[in-house]
């Protein structure tokens, strides 16, 4: 992990204010969330789309390249991981086959019980995340 820059006076600032890289590791942004992504391991195909698309560092991956849970300290709840997940697209397609008028998307799919069962990433409310998934 990078070090926090130590600046006591204006003379300690690097020219132009450059700092060592990776300092966003110190900057937790998880409290910005209005929705919480939930990873459902049983449905995950380990395609790494969510890891590639996450604009921050919220998708945890092991040294062996296995996606595990979330680092909620960096997750702003943007929903890009759920949107980009191919299982989301597959699940929506399946539901639409049953009823062509079904309106569902990655953001509020959790409201549909069948979608909630089959999706790999669910976006849920903060209340639901706390009560059902034990995520603060």
């Amino acid at each position, binding site marked *: 992990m990078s070090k926090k820059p130590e600046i006591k*006076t*204006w003379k300690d*600032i690097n*020219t132009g*204010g*450059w700092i*060592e*890289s990776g300092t966003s590791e110190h900057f937790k942004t998880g409290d910005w969330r209005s929705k919480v992504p939930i990873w459902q391991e049983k449905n995950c195909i380990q395609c790494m789309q969510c890891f590639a698309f996450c604009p921050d560092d919220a998708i945890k991956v092991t040294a062996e390249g296995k996606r595990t849970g979330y680092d909620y300290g960096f997750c702003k709840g943007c929903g890009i991981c759920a949107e980009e997940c191919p299982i989301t697209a597959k699940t929506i397609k399946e539901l639409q086959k049953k009823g062509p008028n079904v309106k569902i998307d990655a953001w509020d799919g959790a409201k549909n019980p069948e979608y909630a069962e089959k999706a790999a990433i669910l976006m849920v409310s903060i209340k639901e995340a706390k009560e059902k998934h034990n995520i603060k």
Partner: protein
Amino acid sequence: MEKTILARTGNEAMAEAMRQINPDVCAAYPITPATEIMQIFSGFVSDGLVKTKLITVESEHSAMSACLGSAAAGARTMTATSSQGLALMHEILFIVSALRLPIVLADVNRALSGPINIHCDHSDTMAERDTGWIQIYAENSQEAYDLLIQAVRIGEHRDVLLPVCVSTDGFIISHGMERLETYPDAEVQKFVGEYKPVYNILDVDNPITVGSLVLTDYYLEHKRAQHEAMKNSLRVMSEVFSEFGKTFGRTYDFCEKYRCDDAEYILVCLSSTAGTAKAAIEELRNQGMKAGLLKIRAFRPFPAEQITNTLKNAKAIAVLDRSESLSTRSGPVATEIKAALYDACVNKPMQTYIYGLGGREIYIEDIKKVFNNLKDAKCGGQVEYLGVKE
């Protein structure tokens, strides 16, 4: 040193200086009356006379943004613009100076809209006065050529690392053909030397963050560091002026003092008007008036000491501003001079003028009128419009 004597317009002179500097990157968008600078330079690129990567973009905002990225990657970077183009660069100009990227910009002074106008005044660069850029105003093509070469060294100096804007008067200089002495390519290359950036965002072995968020805790300290760099630039500019003089035989200074030594009445102005003023002063001297001219080249940093030392012995001072700040008081140059004189405890009769806006011509007769009015000048004279239809 062997010099080549050419007939060149201001724009051609600036493009020639750019060819000899041979920057790594230029990103630009065309605008009258600065278009030719990049048009001519793009010819140099196409002909393989420079190794510059030319980036054509969709606006001046993008041009300065591309320059910022290029400079942050350690490339020697130049661009050219004017008027609305410079105004569109506005927000990026602050970021460039804060990131301490020594981009060199050739500006051609032109009025800002509105009403829309393409002719000369200084409202474009004066509006960027507080962006943290060094500002140098060239009187003619020769100065534009010489000062653009020196700008590279001034901006890139380790104790400065600030962007530099060198400007000429739109059409009057940019499109006016004059005698220009140029120096051999190799000598100019030797003078500007190799650019050694202090940081490089593309150095993957030493990754860094540039442009990070700085809130209440350190913003003030960042500005203090910029303030110091601008103070240092006064010393560095003196050194570069002196080295340039020794190398090329033409020595510059923050100001040009023309017949000021015994002058009772001194006129202060920037840029091409100085040429007209010199002719007026010669006529007045023949009529027995001790008239002098103080032409300011460097407006940022402001060479207050040199200016007050020159003005303190005058009986009265006239200041010409080719831009309005609409404070109902003086224009930006006169305001700055008044502040400098106050700091030096000098109180002199002074008459300040707004003139030449939107390319309005200024004649020798206008300047003679200014000097003749100075005989009756009092302290606290209100700003007047020169050459306005009343």
